[in-house]
């Protein structure tokens, strides 16, 4: 931690005395602490970029303040954040978007970790466009189930393995791209949502079973690598591809792997950029991203407890598209209905076909093996 020269030496000394008095270990991280202003505790977290908008929402900040917490966050890819130097000293909590990434942080920082919790989750979804879905529907890859669209992973993976181009599909006049049919994701080497997509694809390729042996895993590496290497460069955080989806239209990427909540948060806000041509589809099967908070201080604990249990936070989380679990499960469906968007989002009870993440060891093996393929491309 660098010193804040502006705070002044005297102010700094008072702060230190208070730190000792309060016995609050994370004080060295405080920046603008006012020693005379009351008991607000500064808490700093590092979070997957998908949660940055939530933590920077003025309403969320105000609600934290009501609980005497001043929470600021930095963003990093969920797999990247565990590698940040000085993670547990700089931050009060780390909040990746998967339990596997969270557990990895815990395992690597056994002494600094105080608690691990999973206050909410997000289904992986595909942000796409109606003309694209129509092309896929004509080719048996997309279907409407009830009110929501779904994309059949087996049919999609078959197109990928045959290197199908969009303009080779029936009805492709609506989307005459010469590019290969391929989901766009974040960078598999750094980002959780790409990791979730990889886990999902491995589950489908393995005949709808979790990849559980090294043999199964290595048999899939070629096919899985193509899903990522073929995309070329990918952004390291999930906010990137979705922002491009919103601002660039179907030409940027016809099928973008996102968290469902990103789409909802955009659709629910004022001046939403979601047009009637933009559609959320669920892969079938889909997979849940379990946002996992790893805390390194009392302040971090306090934040996680509020997110897990407080009904006011549950509402704000739902507004941002996160599905709370535990005592506030069901708030998301309620908030979706309040926005008049029921039908666009699958109710919690209707996720029947769910893929599971492979073990930490298998995930690590697949991520590292696919990651290493990026470096050997010269002829």
């Amino acid at each position, binding site marked *: *931690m*660098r010193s804040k020269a502006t705070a002044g030496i005297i102010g700094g000394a008072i702060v230190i005395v208070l730190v000792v008095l309060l016995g609050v270990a994370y004080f060295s991280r405080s920046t603008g602490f006012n020693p005379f202003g009351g008991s607000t505790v500064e808490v700093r977290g590092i979070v997957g970029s998908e949660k940055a908008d939530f933590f920077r929402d003025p309403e969320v900040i105000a609600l934290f303040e009501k609980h005497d917490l001043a929470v600021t966050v*930095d963003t990093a890819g969920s797999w990247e954040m565990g590698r940040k130097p000085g993670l547990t000293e700089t931050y009060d909590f780390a909040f990746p978007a998967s339990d596997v990434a969270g557990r990895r942080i815990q395992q690597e920082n056994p002494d600094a970790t105080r608690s691990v919790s999973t206050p909410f989750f997000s289904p992986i979804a595909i942000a796409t466009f109606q003309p694209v879905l129509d092309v896929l529907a004509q080719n048996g890859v997309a279907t409407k189930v009830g009110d929501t669209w779904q994309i059949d992973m087996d049919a999609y993976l078959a197109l990928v393995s045959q290197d199908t181009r969009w303009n080779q599909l029936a009805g492709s006049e609506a989307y005459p*791209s010469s590019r290969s049919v391929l989901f766009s994701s974040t960078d598999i080497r750094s980002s959780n949502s790409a990791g979730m997509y990889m886990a999902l694809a491995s589950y489908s390729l393995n005949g709808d079973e979790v990849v559980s042996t090294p043999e199964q895993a290595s048999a899939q590496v070629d096919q899985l690598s193509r899903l990522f290497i073929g995309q*070329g*460069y990918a952004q390291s955080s999930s906010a*990137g591809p979705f922002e491009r989806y919103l601002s660039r239209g179907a030409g940027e990427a016809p099928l973008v792997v996102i968290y469902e909540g990103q789409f909802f948060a955009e659709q629910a806000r004022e001046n939403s950029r979601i047009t009637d041509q933009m559609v959320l589809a669920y892969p079938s099967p889909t997979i849940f991203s379990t946002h996992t908070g790893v805390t390194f201080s009392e302040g971090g604990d306090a934040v996680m407890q509020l997110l897990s249990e407080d009904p006011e936070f549950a509402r704000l989380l739902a507004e941002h598209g996160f599905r709370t679990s535990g005592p506030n499960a069901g708030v998301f469906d309620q908030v979706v209905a309040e926005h008049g968007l029921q039908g666009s989002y699958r109710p919690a009870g209707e996720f029947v076909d769910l893929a599971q993440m492979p073990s930490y060891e298998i995930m690590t093996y697949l991520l590292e093996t696919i990651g290493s393929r990026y470096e050997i491309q*010269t*002829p």
Partner: protein
Amino acid sequence: MRSRRPEPAPVPSTAGISRRSVLMAAAPAAVLPLAACTGGGDVSEEKTLTVLAGSEIRDLEPLLAEMAESIGYALDITYQGTLDGTDALVSGGPGEYQATWFPSNYYLSLFQQSAALIDQQSPIMSSPVVLGLTSEAAARLGWSAAQPPSWQDLIEAVRAGSLTFGMTSPLSSNSGFSTLLEAATALSGTGTALAAADIPAVVEPLTAFSAGHALTAGSSGWLAERFAENPGAADGIFNYESVLSGMSIGGQPLVLIAPSDGVVTADYPLTLLSGASEEARTAYQAIVAHLSSEEIQRRIAETTRRRTSTTTAGDAVVFETPYPASLETVQALLRTWFEQTRKPSRMWFQIDTSGSMAGERLEALKTALGVLTGREAQSANESLLALQPRETLTIREFDSVLGPAHTFSLSEDQDPAGVHREMDAMIDSLEAGGDTAIYSSLAQILQEAAGEATPETFTSVVVFTDGENTAGMDLADFRKAYSAGEYSAGSSDGGSIPVFAIAFGEADSQELADLTELTGGRVFDAGDDLTAAFREIRGYL
């Protein structure tokens, strides 16, 4: 003011191009700002982020100055090309910079060091690199935004002799690099991102493409200026949509064509570098929040014509070219472009070795000329600035009189190292003495250059001088003879040989600016980094 050499400000043009940036229009042509601190001296150092940025974002300076007024945070910007600046960061670390703001972080992300260099990044706005055609050319070719050609169609049009274009150097400028990547990816026909193994197959079509390359430049802004002043030089130029949509030729707006296979879009991520102080982090977050706010996003869209969160995608679907995931692929593509497929350069360097150059200046000159032989190269990309296969370079010393011609050519099957060492030996033998006869010497060189110029090469003259003209004809005499066509006699292409100038020491920048403007070139103020000036000028040749 910082020491690293930026790209010079585009020379303002009053005719043809309807650029709206107040700041650009106010920038004097010859006195080139090294760095811009937006928001003036009111903002304290703790609230100022030092930023290494692409010259493309100069058009944001008015908005950034307002930002300093309204939120009390400012950017202290040094301008450098995307590839150049990235190479410097990768090899030297963040140094004095706390943040970067290039058109894209794609290139940086290819380096293993990028994870350790980037703390966080926030794309602020975007603009694709497309082809802006004159309305006449678009009508003749039958292309429109709604009916765009594929890259294959573009190549066929060039082969048929019905399309000529301008693009920037892929090494110096992100728009040129994007254009090359769009072309190579589409022509590879793989449907996925370009891989190094795909490159040999695109050499032939890229070479055919290069035959139509009529205008080159080291920066996107300057290419646009050049084309606006001289629209007869090409049918159109590849540039950012934001630059092209502000241009008109002969009263008609350009027709913007996004090739149907795909384009590369710059997304301008403001990027906090690792190791930045707490103050810098706070400043970064405040600045990103401000720039991402709805009002500022709207104003960015209005004033710069870039796409922001307030603009919606247009009606026509524009496909995005995927970017290669490996550095090897990018480097192989650049190497192929410069060594095999690009239209080769025919360069004439007129080098001042008058008495005032003696001592340190002569040593600095020898070092700087090493850019052309590769001995100053600090990265794989910089070595591409050396004389390339198929290129020819003539170096002529001048003082009171013009010295003999030292001409070096590199054929495709020749070992470059041998020729580069011969050049080194010649450069090391330079000695200083005598007066400075700039214009008499230039007149002679132009006549020779015009005699040799062909449309199959980019012919250009570089005048390097450290002092005022003290012998022979003056600028007025030169101008008279030049305008009368005396230096383009007997050439098929001689009328359009641009003269570039590097002003060093006591050189008269204003007079050199007048000279280069007359000939369609540009002046570079070397400041205290002559080598950087030579590197930069190579992007224009």
